[in-house]
């Protein structure tokens, strides 16, 4: 549900060049500006940390994230279980570590597929215009008319059982319209530019024009929106878990872990269960948002006055 909001924040316009900066490509310029942004760098560091944790989960986690123990349920923190155990006696710390892997995977791939769909449809619509544009835009209209969350819930009800891959797919097929619109708008603004007309007049293929001339110019808005979208996906996963439509247990996700706190007992007595995944989500999303903000400022110097 926060998707829309985030994407509104992230709606960026294509980069504008000043005379002095012409020697570098817009992308290089943006990167240079990005690296001067302290918050964004801090975000990168935090995100890198979680990615490393996710990558080396097998080494870091002391227990299997799914090993249960009937006689050690909702245990407090101890030297054996650093963050205690959950309602099936599974080790919270190991679940947190493996949860990073699952949650980041979901966030990243859901974002990636959404971007792929969005870029393809947006490019087609923006480049070809006419009936292609009409068709794609009507499709986005139709998708945007049904509230995002209701649509996802309805689709989850259709597929009945959710695995990680399916979950990612469902999100991707529902989340693409926003990005499609943004990319289309960018392309439309580029269509009449001289260099595009020039390229066309010398007989460059559509494919070549899209990849050589359009996409590089749209890369700013794409990256910015993609980053913010990833943050949204991570939050969305936890929200769906909470209402029982997320990835089922025993798969460790941060959302599944926080959902355990849907009880005053856990909330009051077992902070070990819910504070760490809560913080993990908060920090990751915060980090990604900082990066996204940094990228926007970098690609769109106008907003960074």
């Amino acid at each position, binding site marked *: 549900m926060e998707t829309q909001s985030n994407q509104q924040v992230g709606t960026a316009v294509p980069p504008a060049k000043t005379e002095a900066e012409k020697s570098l490509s817009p992308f290089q310029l943006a990167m240079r500006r990005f690296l001067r942004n302290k918050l964004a760098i801090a975000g990168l560091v935090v995100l890198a940390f979680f990615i490393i944790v996710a990558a080396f989960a097998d080494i870091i986690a002391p227990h299997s994230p*799914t*090993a*249960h*123990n*009937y*006689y050690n*349920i*909702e245990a407090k923190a101890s030297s054996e279980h650093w963050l205690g155990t959950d*309602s*099936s*006696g599974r080790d919270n710390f190991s679940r947190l570590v493996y949860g990073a892997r699952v949650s980041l995977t979901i966030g990243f791939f859901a974002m990636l597929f959404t971007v792929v769909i969005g870029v393809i449809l947006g490019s087609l619509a923006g480049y070809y215009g006419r009936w292609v544009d009409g068709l794609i835009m009507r499709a986005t209209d139709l998708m945007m008319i049904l509230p995002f969350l209701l649509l996802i819930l309805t689709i989850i*009800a259709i597929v*009945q*059982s*959710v*695995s990680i891959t399916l979950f990612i797919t469902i999100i991707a097929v529902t989340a693409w319209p926003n990005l499609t619109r943004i990319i289309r708008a960018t392309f439309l603004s580029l269509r009449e530019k001289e260099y595009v007309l020039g390229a066309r007049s010398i007989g460059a293929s559509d494919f070549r024009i899209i990849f050589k001339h359009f996409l590089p110019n749209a890369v700013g808005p794409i990256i910015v929106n993609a980053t913010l979208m990833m943050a949204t996906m991570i939050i969305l996963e936890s929200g769906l878990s909470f209402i*029982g439509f997320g990835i*089922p*247990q*025993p798969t460790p996700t941060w959302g599944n872990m926080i959902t355990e706190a*849907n*009880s*005053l*007992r856990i909330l009051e007595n077992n902070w070990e269960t819910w504070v760490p995944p809560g913080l993990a989500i908060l920090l990751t999303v915060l980090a990604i948002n900082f990066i996204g903000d940094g990228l926007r400022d970098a690609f769109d110097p106008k907003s960074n006055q």
Partner: protein
Amino acid sequence: MKFSKFWLMLILSLSLVFVLAACGDDEEASGDTEEDDTATEDDATEDDGEDATEEDDDAEEGDSGEAQQGGTITAGMYSAPGHQFNPLFYSDAYEANILSFTHESLVQLNEELEYEPSLAHDWEINDDFTTITFHLNEGVKWHDGEDFTADDVYFTYATIADPDYVATGGVRTNYVVGLKGYEEYVNGETDVFEGVEVIDDHTVAFHYEEENIKMLFDTSFIIVPAHPFEGMEISEIPDSSASRDAGEVVGTGPYHLSDMIEGEQYVLTAFEDYWQGTPYLDGITWRVIQQSVMPGLLESGELDMIAEPNGVPASDFERVDGLENITTFETQDFGYQYMGFKFHHRTTEDVESGTINPDNWVENEKLSDVRVRQAIVSAINRQGIVDGLLYGLGSVMEAPFPEASWAYDPDAVTEYPYDPDRANELLDEAGYVDVTGDGMREDPDGNEWVLNLDYPTGNEVRERTAPIIADELGEVGINVNLRQPREAGPHFDAIEQDNNDFDLYLAGWSLAVGDPDPAGIWQSTAAYNYTRWNDETSDELIRKAVTAPDAFEQDYRAEVYNDWAAHVSEEVPMVFLYSADNIYAYNSALQNVKELPAGIYQDSHLWYLAQ
């Protein structure tokens, strides 16, 4: 220019609001009625239990231990009722919560799960066991002041037997199918339902086509008044205000539904002319609450009672039990959770035509060796599930009879304690050994042996057991393919339409307390025989237990059920995982609560708040 645009946009966004607002303008009306009536309830709901008693009528005796007049309590349930307050058509446990206080039956269950008088004070059964004659209490009034008579009993049963009953949404035809003349009546061939005979205003007889050993169960349905529905088509009844609206729903019970806020609060007010005497309490307010905050509400006194249908979750028991102002009561649920073995699958044609014919079934050879099934039940730590996931508040069963039932006998059955070594032995013996060296056993022919395990979401504890069971079976070398859970509805569809590759599945039965006859689930031809277990001995014993004339002796039936239970526990057609306790909690100030195996709602007119 800019300015006017600003306002136009504002108007636009507000107009969106009104589009929606227009859909629901008559919603407020229900909140304004009966103001003086609810003024006191209002106070009591906000106070905690002890304070509530201070409002008690001081005209009554001051001694503690004596029943006090007055006060209201607030009870909680986790989901809103579906607003069908007509017992003939209600469908959910939340509606049942309200109906338990507003309506009554001819007979009710006592502590020994035997029927005792309620609206009927006496009954006799004829020598052929085909007729039961009830003598009804006189002076029983409906909430609207009309007298309760035998005509109401006739109306109730004739409605269930009506040709339009099922099409209108009713599902309770099991109460009438055995009655005489049902076929003719349901087919519209006659206007008189022969099965229920009104002898005089306070005498009514039920005639059965054949000898019936479960007559008391079959006549225990909730009685509905005839007069509010007079002249109505059956199809109009569920939508009539007497079935839906607070203040209009009429029963004989100690409380009447006087007011409600949909989805939130359901206010029951004491019925002064209740035939067993005016209730001590002024009323009971049901609130719909989130399960997660329930203990907090009990503690703060905002809630006085939590009972049916889910009660206190086992995980919160310790906390709730530790509350000083709260009394708890646990009783074993009559239902149970199990892991079924798919013995057979039906063919696609049979599934499509809805045929249940054991002769056409296709055997699932993966599970046909009894030693395999015994090994599986031995490899699952069921006591661990009860101790851990249920916090000890449940029981392990070997046969489908709860402890409270007269059919229960722990000595009759073979027990399967958690014993992985035994499981390994049994599997080795049956020829299921690991020939490929991957740690997983192959079948006796050396082929890959994978058991699919399907399970539904919805029941949190059951959901948690699935990965654990897969784990435990893996430890004895059984390769379990744990599949993604489905939602309960589609899961049960898939179990039923079993032309698929299911081997193991998790499910549960919520059973009524009436009679232990297992035929509905266990007879091989029963639609609900989801395991498709086809066992002659079992079928025969089930039939034997209800065959007249011996079956009129409860002891005889108990004995046959023991034999059947022994056979079931030997053959292991399913793994009985656990039977959870129902945990009820109520304010300690609330006195006279009858703690029965079937719940705590009986004789609620005697409840009172102590000082």
